[in-house]
């Protein structure tokens, strides 16, 4: 039972305590249920701060390990193995940080089956945290697949009019990728006789050197993992589930989807594709860069054509995550560090945008851009927060988005692995296009003459709860934008270690 008291075990499974309490509550006591969920997620965030305080940023290795034999029979060296390092700590923190914010945002938005909602939400947090912490492929796969289940219900039960379609599409699309990864995991397990990632990293170079796993097979394995992660990210052209899922998901679901779930894909590339299959990763880098660049431009162009605010932000995610992929496969220190920071940035800014759009939607029940207009005069606080989030999302200097994108482009320009500055050059256009579609939306909604919606609705500005939901995100946008050094310091040693193992 000692393993229960390990910091990372506590962090991962703490929300389960809340679930257990919720199970025994009367589903009519909605406020109490909300408080239980809120307190649970806040306590989990507290645990994450405790974990963070024990994390040594100058150490590039895995830390705070919780490792216990789990399934030990012939050929099955499966461990219960959680650990954290510089690659994952920020994402773990982001998960613990966004969950209470999302729960707070549902306070009045979710009235139906609140208990079920909160249970699924807390279970989702368990899955997400586990994905970032698992250091055993079997355990990772369990967490990875498990996140699908609560998210499927969140979209399918509390979503918009086409929720069932979106939920099933989300489930099947994501599963389609992960089944290929499953086969690759099993193959690796058979060849290395372990599912333990650090051990695998020690054994694999020999297998590559002796030709037990040929270069061709390595590429296949790389592609199998890529299938799972590229769908999750999502990379162009595998993104078509994302707009549906985002548009139909309830606000809190969208926030978590954009903020954390998509990062599971990019994190997967970082944790598995690059270190496990280094040669294939280098070989594939130009191709990934190509797809990332297409995604950046495509996502931005399609965003501009949207009439629904949420869909616009959803497509902008395709564009932003293109940047993350581009930076990551630059395979140099700037690119990878920028990519990790941009994962966090995207979580903050897109999370904030989804929250704010959700708040106005709650009042008007429409997200059509054209029915709005002149909102600034009626709802100045809402407008200000929206402006900051928009500027953060489009990468204005002084805010977080700029730092991430700039570092990524810097990395991509000089990248040997990508081999051509053109990708970075074209991607830079994406930054400009982002300004176009974001400012277009902002202008249509907040400036100009009052739209028809203002005639039909007594629009209220944000209340204290709603402001409190967004403010923490805004603080981090400024912090990262103005003084990103502490964040880069956390990343740098682990990134350096990751890259030093590459045969570049």
């Amino acid at each position, binding site marked *: 039972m000692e393993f229960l008291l390990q910091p990372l075990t506590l962090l991962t499974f703490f929300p389960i305590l809340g679930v257990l309490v919720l199970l025994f509550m009367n589903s009519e006591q909605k406020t109490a249920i909300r408080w239980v969920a809120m307190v649970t997620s806040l306590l989990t965030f507290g645990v994450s701060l405790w974990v963070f305080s024990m994390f040594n940023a100058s150490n590039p290795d895995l830390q705070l390990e919780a490792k216990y034999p789990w399934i030990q029979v012939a050929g099955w060296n499966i461990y219960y193995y959680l650990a954290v390092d510089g690659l994952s700590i920020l994402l773990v923190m982001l998960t613990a940080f966004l969950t209470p914010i999302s729960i707070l945002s549902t306070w009045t938005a979710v009235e139906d089956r609140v208990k079920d909602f909160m249970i699924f939400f807390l279970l989702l947090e368990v899955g997400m945290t586990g994905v970032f912490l698992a250091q055993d492929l079997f355990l990772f796969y369990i967490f990875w*697949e*498990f996140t699908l289940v609560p998210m499927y219900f969140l979209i399918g039960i509390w979503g918009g009019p086409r929720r069932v379609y979106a939920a099933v599409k989300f489930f*099947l699309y994501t599963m389609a990728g992960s089944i290929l990864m*499953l*086969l690759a995991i099993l193959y690796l397990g058979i060849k290395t006789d372990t599912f333990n990632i650090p051990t695998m990293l020690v054994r694999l170079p020999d297998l590559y050197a002796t030709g037990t796993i040929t270069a061709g097979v390595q590429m296949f394995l790389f592609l199998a993992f890529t299938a799972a992660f590229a769908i999750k990210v999502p990379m162009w052209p595998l993104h078509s589930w994302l707009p549906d899922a985002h548009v139909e998901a309830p606000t809190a679901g969208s926030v978590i989807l954009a903020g954390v779930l998509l990062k599971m894909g990019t994190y997967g590339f970082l944790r598995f594709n690059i270190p496990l299959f280094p040669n294939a990763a280098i070989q594939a880098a130009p191709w990934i860069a190509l797809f990332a660049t297409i995604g950046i431009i495509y996502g931005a162009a399609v965003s501009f054509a949207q009439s629904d605010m949420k869909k616009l932000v959803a497509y902008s995610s395709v564009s932003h995550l293109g940047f993350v992929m581009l930076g990551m496969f630059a395979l140099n220190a700037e690119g990878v560090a920028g990519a990790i920071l941009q994962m966090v940035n995207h979580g903050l800014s897109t999370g904030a945008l989804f929250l704010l759009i959700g708040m106005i939607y709650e009042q008007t029940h429409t997200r059509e851009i054209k029915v709005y207009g002149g909102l600034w005069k009626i709802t100045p606080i809402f407008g200000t927060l929206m402006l900051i989030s928009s500027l953060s999302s489009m990468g204005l200097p002084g805010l977080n988005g700029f730092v991430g994108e700039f570092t990524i482009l810097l990395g991509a320009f000089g990248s040997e692995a990508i081999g051509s500055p053109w990708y970075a050059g074209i991607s830079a256009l994406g930054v400009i296009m982002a300004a176009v579609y974001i400012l277009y939306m902002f202008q249509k909604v907040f400036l100009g003459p009052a739209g028809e919606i203002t005639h039909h609705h007594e629009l209220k500005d944000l209340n204290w709860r709603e402001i409190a939901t967004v403010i923490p995100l805004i603080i981090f946008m400024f912090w990262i934008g103005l003084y990103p050094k502490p964040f880069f310091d956390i990343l740098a040693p682990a990134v350096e270690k990751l890259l030093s193992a590459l045969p570049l």
Partner: protein
Amino acid sequence: MTQPQFIDFYTLMPFLIISVWACLLLLVDLFIPNDRKGITVALAVLGLVIALGYSVTQVGLASRGFNNMVVLDGFSTFANILLLASGLLGIALSYGYNSRMGINRSEYYTLMLFSVGGMMLMAQATDLIIVFLALELLSIPLYVLAAISRKRDAEESGVKYFLLGAFASGFVVYGTALIFGATGSTNLADIFYAASSGTSSLLLTIGAALLLVGFGFKVAAVPFHMWTPDVYQGAPTAVTAFMAAGAKIAGFVALFRVFATAFPALSADLTDILWALSALTMIVGNLSALSQTNIKRLFAYSAIAHAGYILMAFVPYGNSEVAPTAIAAGLFYLVAYAVTNFGSWGVVIALEKAEGKGLELSDYAGLAKKYPALAIAMTIFMLSFIGFPPTLGMVGKFYLFRSALAGGFPGLAIIGVVTSLISAYYYLRIVVNMYMKEGDPVAEREPWLGFATALTAVLTVVVSFVPQFLFLLASTAIFK
């Protein structure tokens, strides 16, 4: 030939307990008044529990009996425990259902005991004659049970099952005869020696192929699956649940034992055939399930598909390095399948109404709101069937696909995962109905049914977190 010794009976003890108990029960039942037939059920349960307790004490022991015609080894004990547990779950599902549907016939439980006995004999048989005997002993009670409600479609179901089952038995007998012709013996060990010394292999191969056809019928592998949807749909649901688990387990353990002990020499010919059978079963089963709207038919096709997954474990049976783990994977998956199977049928039974009502997918709409526990249980079973964490089905599929890859059949593993993806679509349709559609279903609350459903749901989740003991049991369940 030596005369049977007392020790021989020990080898067959689990089977003897059940058969003798069933015979006695048939007599005792005559003296139990009609309004107290619950006693018969309790006695049947007691018999199963005694045999189960005895079987548990046999873990790790091994003996042979009756001139090597039967054996008690890790493999058969594993199967016996699983089959006895299936019998218990089958009765738990039947009890309330039968009185609700007016099938209150006390011979129902006796027939179930006989069938379980036949299945256990099947697991212990090391002689083709005994295999045949066991096959008939397990099948005939099932034919009767399928038709026991005397409704039109139940009778159709029974007759169809009987005719096709008799046909399958014919294949087994003919196969046995050919094998005897080729090797001069029906004993598996003798056949093995004869086959590996290379005597007239064509006759032997044909014989083995005919056996495969016979077992293929029993486990509902494509293309011998045609009877399954009609029989599963027409039979009383509790019988279907028992049949879908018990008959499949028995068919598979016989297949595993007969082929792995007698015909490793034929693996060059048979592996391709098994590969094709497994692939076809997975593909056809899952694709056919996609368009079903009746839950019993849907689960029937799903049962076919799962036969394909289990067969996958068996494809590399001739490769002596991989075969033990592959068969262990098959056994592990049989457990996962049996547990999930009973649970899901339990939910179906809870919602079924007289006259075959309450069996459409649309009848599940709104279940989550009204009966959250039932909906959660069903969701767990569906996830387990898909192979999704945190369920036993996921661990089982992980094991199966691993052994397929380790055995050198990546193509089969790919078909396995792709068909799992397809299956997600129809299993999710049930979840969609339960959680995302509005409706007003009415479920029966029967204590034993509820207990069985809850127990299987809990097992499906909990054992997936602590599967080590099951892994060990399955991997030590080897042939002697």
